[in-house]
């Protein structure tokens, strides 16, 4: 299992153990994590699965594809040049056994 932590602005944290290969968006949506919407089901079409990845995990991430890059310009909360990613494009357990992200205040 891979460990994913979603940190919320109010200080609460959702910690999930998920099957490796599960996207952060899917993990959040199936476990009812607040603040991750994932309208488009992971097609990099809606930008409602925006997360800020904590700096210590950035090195293990896959590169940003063209589609993801385009969507990161469409997020509701401002993009962070280093830390902003789409939750649907990051899979838990692939290169990272553990990951921690901050959930933006708004997705729409």
């Amino acid at each position: 299992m891979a460990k994913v932590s979603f940190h919320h602005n109010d200080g609460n944290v959702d910690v999930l153990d998920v099957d490796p290969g599960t996207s952060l968006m899917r993990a959040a949506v199936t476990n009812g994590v607040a603040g991750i919407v994932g309208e488009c089901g992971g097609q990099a079409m809606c930008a409602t699965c925006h997360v800020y990845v904590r700096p210590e995990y950035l090195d293990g991430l896959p590169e940003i594809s063209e589609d993801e890059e385009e969507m990161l310009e469409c997020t509701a909360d401002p993009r962070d040049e280093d830390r902003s990613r789409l939750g649907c494009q990051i899979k838990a357990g692939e290169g990272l056994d553990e990951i921690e992200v901050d959930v933006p205040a708004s997705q729409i």
Partner: protein
Amino acid sequence: MTAEAIAARPVPTADWVTIEDLYRNPFPIYRKMRSEAPVHWVPAVNRYMVTSYQACHTVENNQEIFSADETNSLMKRAMGHSMLRKDDPEHDVDRKSYGSVLRPKAIKEHWNAIFQANHETYLARLKSAGPGADLIWEYAAPYAAENLRLVMGFHNATQEDMQRWSQTMINGTGNYADNPDVWAASEKSYNEVDDAIDEILPYLRKNPDSSLLSGMTSMPIPLEAIRANMKMTIGGGLNEPRDVLGVAVWALLSHPDQLAQVLADPALYPTVFEESVRWVAPIGMYPRETTRDTVLEGVQLPKGARLGVVVGAANRDPEVFEDPESFNINRPKKPHLAFGGGNHYCAGAWVAKASVSGIALPQLFAELPNLRLDPERPAVDAGWVFRGMTALPVRWDAK
């Protein structure tokens, strides 16, 4: 049996629902149904209607149990077997064939200039029709049709062709009464679209542009899938932007406080768009089918149940939206389901937003001073599977 199935209750029947009432105004019906149960069997519609937000959301996100590949689908007969009636992985192949054509970068680089030119053409048409003209038929419908024609790459058709194809094939997808005249008109359009595709593909191969059909020429996708997907996109990409445009104008003109707020702050037009599609979802209901016995939000459903996912009702669920029946651009932002969700999430959402709230709405209100409803002829809203304005006569002052 699982504990869940034991606790589940049988699905209630709503035999009091009629198509006529739904067509006129579905919202009081949805309100009553939602307060009773998240799902009903509705004999008049011959489907299980799913009306709560949570239940619609669950269906959208589980294609293993809630399949889009419906048996005896009228849409397959009217338009062919498009991506909208496939599950993954087959769906994904078709969806990828649309490439980047409908995405924000292409909109910025190619489509916005075209939408702007089309806006100017049909605004001029509306103005020359003069005060009292119908905003839907002189502006919104041809504007949406011409935008879609160029995005799709039908250089050998007119916006009038697009409107006729769209409406006649949509009528086919809803032809539960099996009316032969409806089938004849739908089949005629089916054949015309196939012919237009056959004619334009070789042209686009030689003269590529940014359109969907041009992109298809270099995609490993069978002609049969192209034909079905194009027909579905004609049916799903024209009436909806037209209808959100009409509903948004009508809503603002009927809520003077909110209109004043928007006129003072044009950055609010995207919010107007989102609230308009929440309030009146242009696609009010779409189908799914269960692949096994299941329990949906505590209600038992048999295998093979034909569902209607009523996002028009989900978008007014009081569990999610406060005072849901009101049009209110100042309500707290919550995700609505008007574009669907999950793997079939609308491929044209960005195009719809760019053309309607990026260009049409702000410029209509800027160019038509004191735009107002015609006091002599009422605006008419109608429909439930598809809902929008069927008449929107407006007046304005000379500039």
